[in-house]
């Protein structure tokens, strides 16, 4: 069965550097509940260099939610900020880091592919 969360973090770990986060340093932890246990993903960020681990060490910012919601965020079906306002997602710590990190989440699926601009065309490739 597909595991979008694992795929996302493993993809990030494999990449090792994320240009969209190049101006940021700090640590983030994602506590994702589901079934019996809570899964932890820990991201160490140093000017865009990322190290991903599975531990529950302290972090500058901690995001807590359930797996279903987080998978939906990664798939672009739910918006992270809206989920936060709904209370489905909660955040403790340095919000600024999470604000930077959420750039990596996808947008909503839509009809933009029909637009003729260079940017959307790039997206199609």
């Amino acid at each position, binding site marked *: 069965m597909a595991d979008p969360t694992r795929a996302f973090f493993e993809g990030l770990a494999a990449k090792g550097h994320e*240009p*969209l986060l*190049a*101006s940021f340093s700090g640590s983030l932890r994602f506590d994702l509940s589901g079934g019996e246990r809570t899964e932890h993903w820990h991201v160490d960020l140093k000017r865009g260099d990322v190290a991903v681990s599975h531990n529950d060490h302290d972090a500058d910012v901690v995001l807590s939610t359930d797996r279903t919601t987080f998978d939906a965020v990664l798939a*672009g079906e*739910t*918006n992270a*900020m*809206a989920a*936060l*306002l*709904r*209370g*489905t997602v*909660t*955040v*403790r*710590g340095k*919000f*600024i880091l*999470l*604000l*930077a990190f*959420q*750039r*990596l*989440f*996808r*947008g*909503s699926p*839509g*009809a*933009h592919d029909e*637009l*003729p*601009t*260079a*940017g*959307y065309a*790039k*997206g199609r490739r």
Partner: protein
Amino acid sequence: MNEVKILDGNTFVVSDEAGDIEASLTDPTGLFSFDTRFLSKWVLTIDGQRLNPLSVDDLQYFETRFFLVPGTGTVYVDAKLSVIRLRAVGGGFHEVLTILNHDDRPVTLDVRIAADSDFADLFEVKDALKKSGAYARRIDDGRLVLGYKRETFERETWISATQPATIDDQGLRFKVTLEPHGRWETDLHVATGVDAPGQSVAIPKYEGGSRRAKPNMERSLEKWLDEAPRLECDWASLNATYRRSLVDLAALRFSPVSLPGHYLPAAGLPWFMTLFGRDSIFTSLQALPFSAELAATTLTALGLWQGARVDDFRDEDPGRILHELRFGELTAFEERPHSPYYGAADATPLYVVLLDEYERWTGDTRRVRALEPVARAALSWIDDYADLQGNGYVSYKRRNEKTGLENQCWKDSWDSISYRDGRLPGFPRATCELQGYAYDARVRGARLARDVWKDPAYAERLEKQAAELKRRFNRDFWVEDGEYFALALDADGAQVDALASNIGHLLWSGIVDKNKAKRVVRHLMSTRLYSGWGVRTLAEGEGRYNPIGYHVGTIWPFDNSFIAWGLRRYGFKEEAARIAAGILDAAEFFEGRLPEAFGGYPRALTRFPVQYPTACSPQAWSTGAPLLLLRAVLGLEPVGEHLLVDPALPQGIGHLELLDIPGRWGRIDAFGRGTVDVDRVGRGRRQLGVLPQSKVKPTAGSRVHGH
């Protein structure tokens, strides 16, 4: 009804003159925080009777005192009681309720505060929508808790008092016995619980019995005023307008959740106390000579929220700067796209314009280097996502057709963009000022690339693009038979040929060919556009012209302030002074607080500026307008490490000094002299800018000093 508004950031109270809140569709009063109404009812009665206001003291923008008396039914009987409500906002609000007995007999009173909340989203207040969640009330440890819950979304209002009260689910009741000439007092705490980022649900900030509200202002109003340049001027109302602008700007400061302790300008009170790309940028530009902090926070906050993906619901693209951020229920449930919404076509190029202007004033290269990726992504957005027609022009067409914005330029009402005959063009629309902003963004981006980012190849590329855009723009937008620039190009690339104030913004951006500037200025100062008070949004004689039409005939002080800056840019000093004169003179009629817009009637017809009926006030970029006009008339222009001063004052101002202008030079004083026609003094109301031509040559200067 006169509304009384006090606020702290995005928390504000709108009440009647007695301090009561009784919200209805027509009276959108209440206590609001994070775009949610936390109190829709807050009514004080004594022995079942409402109280009558004697006076209201606006002590500070976050504090008001209401003096009240019970109604006696006749002016011949004096009231035997006085009631004082001292209210301050901050994380909810705090109210000291004092009752004084003036009788020489004791009295026993039934004092009642009726409270309720509909927890309406601000959007619901405006559109009267139905709620989907459930309400609950409870009495919890001596507090009345009003609650609303929809799935995991929870909001609560906690109400308590320091005096013993009987609490029921409709409010609080006090049995008060007052000795002859006695006094009774209680503190009322209303705390709002918001599940906002970095905040847990329902943290009542006023627990602990603190006597005074604690507005979340780390810097006091006094400090803010102290740090601003000082104005000295012989035109009395300008001093008042300047002070009003500074105080209102302080009130409109807003600390974003991502940057606690730092302030940027929100768009307007009360409905727009949030981060808006366009409004925050324009206001920051206006305020730069007076406070660079607003620009600094705006740049950082907007950079943090920069678009990173293609999202149709939010009209988001990589590199796009947001339009509006909201925290209410409709945004939370994705029924509205404001989390944030990106549907503005001007905010992204304007971001780069502000970044460059900020560096010119402050020399803060550290921030400009840190924001280099943001600026580059913004400039790439212009190339990759804004050119919807493939013709090299920035245009807009919303992808969210249900709740997105149709017009993504500053004139965002439905009928603002029209042909001469009044027809409305289809989409996409490429309005002219967007091309100006894109041109200016590239020119300024090039300067930053060369001087700060040390990337001359990128600078050259941007300059080439800018020059090419300017060349094509002056050909494609120029309306030959009218000799001005078209308002827009339509979906077919044809000219939307109405004459509008947008041509003034083109001067500000520098996209106008030198040989066309004089003709543009002639239009701006013609009776079709210039009313005597200012430049109308749409020229008289156009199909949709209406002197009280929101973007089709009214005069916007903000618009005029940028037009004045544009006139200066092309060397039209006297015309800039005339624009400044009209707007600054109009300000006197509004006690220094310029509204969002006022009527476009000819000045000779009305003698006073007619306020646009539903204008929001104070509005940030109207508040900023006098500041930018001061810059324009003093001719302040940072050049390298220096500030050039080249004043051209409106007729009627004899001397104008702006002292301690902050910037990369430390502090500089600027002063200018103008002329006053003494013959006219004492004959009716003196008017700015309409006196006969001067015979005395104006003088000017500046003075640098360290601090």
